[in-house]
């Protein structure tokens, strides 16, 4: 901590030598005869952990020989460290942010959200009446979520076993992950699949094993706009894929499906993005819905109902 304060107070930067001799924490050890080598290692470690906390540290080298770091000076550029002065929040915005920060059911995301809120609240802005009456929750049931998110943050290639429905064994995919998207209550990762050289969207629930975040990195600028692109892609799939369904009026199926569908001559037309996700839902309605087309959806629903029947055949 003394290091941060010292590096922030300096305009021109401090040399490593100066830091080790004068900044509390190093100075005591220096005076009691610690080796310079050990102290330099300690300084490097501290510098890295501060960067990890989001504290930017500039290294100003010798202008004549930028690679020579022996006389380099270090400083924390205040403008890059602090929340910009011109960013202010209205009381209504703070109230909305408080709600936004409360949605995470996973511990690490919720700790990040609370920590971010704390920084904003420290600006000393009065808060509107809290937004009451709503408790939105984002749940993260997919074990792959944290690792994929880390890979995106670090712009690194991820490798994971992906099981497509209907296939017997998962296949290893090597992907530049670019954005996480929740669509129809399911988490997807949008990225560039290096095995097939194309953009792909993966359902996190089909990642059936550990995600390896490799040391291979990619250009972070590839992430720009990826979320919108993924969303547009899913919307496009939903717009071109529809199922024709007959629903029994007044049933659960009618209530749940009709609001998402458009009326058709023989029943309703329901847009969908994934055959298997849709078939899971339609199977749950049992005799309340009949799939007219497409055949792949109908076959998947029949397959689920048959398997359910077989599993409970002995019941009387």
């Amino acid at each position, binding site marked *: 901590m003394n290091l941060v304060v010292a590096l922030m107070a300096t305009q021109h930067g401090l040399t490593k030598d100066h830091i080790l001799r004068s900044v509390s924490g190093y100075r005591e050890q220096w005076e009691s005869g610690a080796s310079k080598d050990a102290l330099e290692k300690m300084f490097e470690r501290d510098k890295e952990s501060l960067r990890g906390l989001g504290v930017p540290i500039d290294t100003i080298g010798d202008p004549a020989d930028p690679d020579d770091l022996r006389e380099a000076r270090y400083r924390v550029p205040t403008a890059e460290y602090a929340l910009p002065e011109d960013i202010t929040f209205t009381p209504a915005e703070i109230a909305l942010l408080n709600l936004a920060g409360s949605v995470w059911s996973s511990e690490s995301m919720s700790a990040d959200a609370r920590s971010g809120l704390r920084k904003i609240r420290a600006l000393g802005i009065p808060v509107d009446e809290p937004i009451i009456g709503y408790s939105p929750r984002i749940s993260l049931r997919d074990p792959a979520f944290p690792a994929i998110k880390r890979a995106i943050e670090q712009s690194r290639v991820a490798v994971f076993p992906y099981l497509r429905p209907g296939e017997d064994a998962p296949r290893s995919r090597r992907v530049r992950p670019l954005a996480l998207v929740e669509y129809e209550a399911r988490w997807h990762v949008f990225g560039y699949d290096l095995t097939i050289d194309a953009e792909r969207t993966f359902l996190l629930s089909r990642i059936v094993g550990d995600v390896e975040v490799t040391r291979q990195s990619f250009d972070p600028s590839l992430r720009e706009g990826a979320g919108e692109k993924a969303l547009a892609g899913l919307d496009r799939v939903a717009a071109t894929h529809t199922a024709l369904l007959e629903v029994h009026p007044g049933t659960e199926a009618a209530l749940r499906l009709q609001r998402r569908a458009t009326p058709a001559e023989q029943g309703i037309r329901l847009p969908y993005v994934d055959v298997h996700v849709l078939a899971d839902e339609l199977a749950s309605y049992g005799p309340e819905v009949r799939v007219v087309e497409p055949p792949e959806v109908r076959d998947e629903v029949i397959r689920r*109902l048959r398997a359910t029947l077989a599993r409970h055949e002995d019941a009387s």
Partner: protein
Amino acid sequence: MSAARKPLVATERAALILQLVPYLVGKGEVSLTEAADEFDVTIDQMREMVEKLTVIGLPGEGGYWQLPHDLFDIDWDLLDAKDIVSITNTVGLERAPRLTAREAAALLAGLQLARSLPGVRDSDLVTGLLAKLARGASAAPAQVIVAPGPVDSVRDVVDEALRRAVAVSFAYNAPDAPATTRTVDPVTVHIANGQWYLQGWCHMREAMRTFHLDRVSEPTLTDIPSTHGGDQVPEAFAGLEDEGEVTVRVPERLAPLLSGFLPAEAMEPANGVVTARLHLADPRGIKRLAARFGGAMEVREPGVARSATREWAEAGLALYHQPDTQD
């Protein structure tokens, strides 16, 4: 806020101290309890952090020890006598640090979900905030996006009832039950996995109830003032009347799919198979969940639930049965 408060490691403490100084400067005077609560640490941890703060400061010049005004300082009398923290000298760190990319990502995704609320929808407020958060972050946050759900008039009426603090009445179609007309004092709209639930005091049942908004139709505002608006809502898995217990088995790899239906304690894993006990108003209702799992879930007990599941699948298949095919 968090139940288990772990000891702080050095980097965590450093991160908190960076936030603590601007917080204390902004507050003027604040009790240890309030500060501990804001930072999700124990009161003892907060006291320790504040004490540590006072040995932090600028480097001493020319090998001399640091002088008092080169260090952070607090009003010790106030801390000792009243457990109140007041910072009396600062040597930097007064301005809050930028959000880390992770902090910004967590808030940005939350905001997108908040955007789907009727009172907030499409307002300039959200758009402005999204831009500010992105600009206030130290590095580009990972894009974590929540797709907007459909606009819905039922939600608007319920929202209006919440705002006006009046009861709302509607037709309710629970699965496998005749439709009923309900009048409800709204307490909370709970949103999870894209599903919207109204929790409130049901005049008919004279108890707290949870209603899936998809099953609500013809909602109308009443002029009956809501008298239970401030009540506590039951925990997510409680609050159903006449509960029946159903025992099911699923492969362990599919068990996370059940997490929305029951607490983790209710699941027993053994040999790659999880046995779970679910609570349903009507045990036969399990047939819907079982059919969704397509044979991967086995309904074990009670017998009525097991046979209901079989009949459900059978009746469903009958729709596809053609005279010239044989199964």
